[in-house]
């Protein structure tokens, strides 16, 4: 590839230069909101209310983080809930998805197409928000229970299809050799197939973990204020919205909440709620790339 740099025509050089500039520009655009958020969280509330946020922290201050951890039980409790759900949800979901995905691609399994369609159909037609909400909260009685959040994120049709596509690449001879040794299908799956599915498990597991970590929607619908410790992203959501509410209700009465650095506090909470995933992300992103290239086009 390096060789063609020797004799580069003017047109090639122009295309290259434009490419470098555009990619650099778009990368900076992607990064900027994060930098703004981080610098805002380290800014001094007084200067911020006068001048507004900027790319660099204005008057370096850790006060906002002090407020986030002022009642550490709340934020640490949220962390606890989210981490617990992410760990157990990912392990359980991954096991069930792998088991199903393997079974559904077995060419000697006569019900594979019927069951695949049964699962896939849920993406084609759904009852919609309101009937689902009534069913889960009223009939399954899960309103106010963490289970409403935990269970609904366990699997998606897309992840099962993704796993099925991965499992297809494991040669059938392996299943056959297990059968020769007299192992049943479950044993074959556990002993022979699972170890070969490691890249698939990493990819699907990361999508599951991300789903649990970023979860706010089911929490908003089913947990509301019924639980002491909200999942992390939902906690962030309520900080943002209650702080706004607080401000709008206070403005009318002409009272200033002197102590609460509400602007920087929101940003500090956002940094704390996002932090771990951003640090982890560069190390695991290659698995997400496999995910989209294998699962995107082919169903």
């Amino acid at each position, binding site marked *: 590839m390096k060789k063609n740099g020797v004799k580069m025509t003017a047109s090639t050089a122009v295309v290259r230069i434009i490419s470098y500039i555009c990619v650099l520009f*778009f990368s900076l655009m992607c990064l900027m*909101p994060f930098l703004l*958020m981080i610098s805002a969280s380290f800014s001094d509330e007084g200067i911020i209310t006068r001048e507004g946020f900027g790319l660099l922290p204005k008057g370096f201050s850790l006060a906002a983080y002090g407020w986030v951890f002022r009642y550490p039980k709340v934020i640490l409790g949220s962390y606890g809930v989210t981490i617990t759900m992410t760990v157990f949800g990912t392990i359980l979901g991954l096991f069930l998805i792998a088991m199903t995905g393997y079974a559904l691609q077995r060419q000697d399994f006569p019900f594979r197409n019927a069951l695949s369609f049964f699962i896939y159909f849920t993406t084609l037609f759904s009852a919609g928000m309101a009937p689902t909400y009534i069913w889960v909260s009223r009939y399954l009685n899960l309103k106010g229970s963490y289970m409403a959040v935990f269970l609904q994120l366990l699997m998606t049709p897309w992840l099962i299809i993704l796993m099925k596509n991965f499992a297809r690449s494991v040669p059938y001879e392996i299943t056959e050799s297990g059968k020769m040794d007299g192992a049943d299908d479950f044993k074959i799956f556990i002993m022979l197939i699972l170890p070969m599915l490691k890249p698939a498990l990493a990819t699907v597991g990361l999508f599951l973990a991300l789903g649990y970590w970023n979860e706010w929607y089911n929490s908003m619908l089913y947990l509301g204020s019924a639980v002491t410790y909200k999942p992390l992203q939902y906690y*962030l959501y309520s900080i*943002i919205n209650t702080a706004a509410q607080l401000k709008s209700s206070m403005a009318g009465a002409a009272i200033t909440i002197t102590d609460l650095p509400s602007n920087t506090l929101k940003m500090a909470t956002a940094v704390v709620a996002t932090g771990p995933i951003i640090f982890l992300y560069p190390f695991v992103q290659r698995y997400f790339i496999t995910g989209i*290239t294998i699962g995107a086009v*082919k169903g």
Partner: protein
Amino acid sequence: MSLKATLKNQKVQASPHRKPIGRVIRDNRILMLMCLPAVLFFIIFFYCPLPGVYIAFTNYNFRDGIFGSPFVGFKNFEFLIKSGQLWALTRNTVLYNLAFILLGNVLQIILAIMVNEIRCSWFKKVSQTIMFLPYFISAVLIGVLAFNILNYDTGALNALIRSAGANPVKIYSMAGIWPFIIILCNIWQQTGYGSIVYFASICGIDSQIIEAAEVDGATSWQRIRYIILPSLKPTFIILMLFALGGIMKGNFGLFYNLIGPANSQLFPNTDIIETFVFRTMMNQNNFATSSAVGLYQSVFGFILVMFSNWVVRKIDPDYALF
């Protein structure tokens, strides 16, 4: 092997469907059990709520429940059509999705081609990592990031405008500007990650073709124009068709977190089916209207997916979903 067993084997192979169903079930009981948890999951969380679409035809109240509430036929739909709400919501949802799909795919292709032109490997790696990042944050955080830039009192944009000596703008009460902001946010979030599919198909082009073109003295631009772009066409068409099949489905998280639950002056320009369904249900407790809009969306969404899949099957059966 005895003659009888051989004959039996031949018979089984010749007509595998003749096996009695009880036998088939017994032979595959373990594979079936392995699928059971997933099947139960989808029954409980997706199939069981289905009868609930009946709410759309009732005047639902909590006390009487789904099947005890008075039946009103198509009244809920009638009201939604007459008030013009259904049309406005459909228009917003479809137009936003069209913008996302067309603009998004074009930008993803451009980005993929540009990344492919980059020869400096660390620059490529770092820029790709950064460009994928927005895809992996929660919808809540996107709302926070936008608020951080756009709000009137402390937003970075208004800070810039103030420092230039101009008057700050109240972006959160300017309805007309929000379609652009929402489209921008969607592009910001999706372009990097979405370009991977195109990037992968560029990498899949036979390197001999590209080398041959280089020997013939083709410039970068000619390579892009005559080799890369044509090779991306099938991927582009298939992705477009599938995206068009989902054109009735909106990204609830993005819209809800950017606009917020109560900023009603923006709704004429920013309300999509999902946000309306959510609001009528949670804020007004109007489950009947909410279900009616949801059912309308599901039915038309279903027809569109079936249609787009039918078209894909015509073009290339290998890519059809079913």
